[in-house]
């Protein structure tokens, strides 16, 4: 019986994989079916996931088992978020939004200074002594950071020296985007290999 469910699951997964790949030919009912199924099942999954991994362990269990009544405050904010369903009192949901925005804002202020700004500046303040490959690389990094920042500096017109520096900045940015693009392509191709392996190994065992 266990084997039956595994075989059924594999066939179902194979059908859905082929249905999505059918889009390579053109938009068709099989693709639309799989696409809508994906959206519906993902929404259902996320709802259950949120209940069992967030609401239950963080709110229901601590209140019912440990009597942490303080958690009624986020519960209250959570419930008033749902007042958006009732236009007359929908304005109350702003309190919850304000609370979440406040947390996000506070985190962004501290996080952007501690997690981004300071480490990045610290990483750019690198040694430039001696004439060797490391020094040249460090120099290229410092020039690159300044040039990239200049490209995003719009308070002065990009002409003359500033214009040339900004031009160098876009060159650096294109290299960075190219590297990211390469990594994205590789990630997608690795997924594609995974799906092909599933089809030709798990479903139809052509590859050993």
């Amino acid at each position, binding site marked *: 019986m266990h084997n039956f469910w595994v075989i059924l699951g594999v066939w179902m997964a194979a059908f859905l*994989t082929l249905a999505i790949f059918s889009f390579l030919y053109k938009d068709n009912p099989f693709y639309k*079916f799989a696409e809508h199924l994906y959206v*519906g*099942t993902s929404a259902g999954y996320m709802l259950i996931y949120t209940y069992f991994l967030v609401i239950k362990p963080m709110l229901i269990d601590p209140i019912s088992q440990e009597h942490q009544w303080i958690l009624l405050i*986020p519960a209250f904010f959570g419930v008033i978020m749902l007042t958006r369903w009732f236009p007359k009192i929908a304005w109350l949901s702003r309190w919850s939004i304000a609370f979440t*925005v406040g947390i996000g804002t506070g985190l962004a202020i501290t996080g952007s200074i501690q997690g981004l700004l300071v480490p990045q500046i610290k990483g750019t303040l690198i040694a430039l002594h001696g004439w060797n490959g490391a020094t040249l690389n460090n120099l290229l990094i410092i020039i690159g950071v300044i040039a990239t920042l200049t490209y*995003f500096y719009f308070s002065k017109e990009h002409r003359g020296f500033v214009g040339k520096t900004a031009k160098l900045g876009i060159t650096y940015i294109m290299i960075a985007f190219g590297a990211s693009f*390469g990594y994205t392509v590789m990630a997608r191709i690795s997924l594609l290999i995974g799906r092909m392996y599933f089809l030709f190994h798990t479903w139809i065992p052509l590859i050993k």
Partner: protein
Amino acid sequence: MRREIPLAITFITALIMIVSFCIPHAPFGSMQDVSLKWYSIIAGFTMLLGVDSLIHMHSVKIKRKKEGWVYSLVLILGFALFVISGIIGGIRFGSAMDIRSSFMYLYTYMIVPLQSTMFALLSFFIASAAYRAFRARNMDATLLLITAVLVMLGRVPVGYQMWHSFPAVAEWIMAVPQMAAKRGILIGVSLGSLAVSLRIMLGIERSYLS
């Protein structure tokens, strides 16, 4: 009052987060963790709003028999299937995330293949995007693609077989020019994020309340 109270809530909550960060001792130190937990709980409730909006939109489509209503039915049935199996899993095993539950079975054989195939499909479109970028024939697009190719060749065994120095070239690109541009971008992002956050905290930026 309908605007002042939310503005005050935003300011006080943001201030608590900053104080908690700056004074990592009791009773302030734990406030950041507590706030983050509360944030997760409130965000959990918003899931209901999103799901309601999705189901409502597709229910209307089915009711009015609009074009493609059958697919909306598929969407709602898929949603119901996961919710019901999740509830059953919760009752039988204490959690829907239990590996023995039908919920996890459906996740493994439905969502995993759908999601990975959807992203795998993008590899074909990325290839066509690269082709179009090459046709642009300007210096920047060419530089982007040459870098992408070098990075890819440096990261796969076939690249090493073609030329033993490809991995070193890819490593250098990642460590020097890529790193420099990324640093510049991140410094800009952090400054922008800081400025916007301060504007929101001080109530200058209020678009989130509309």
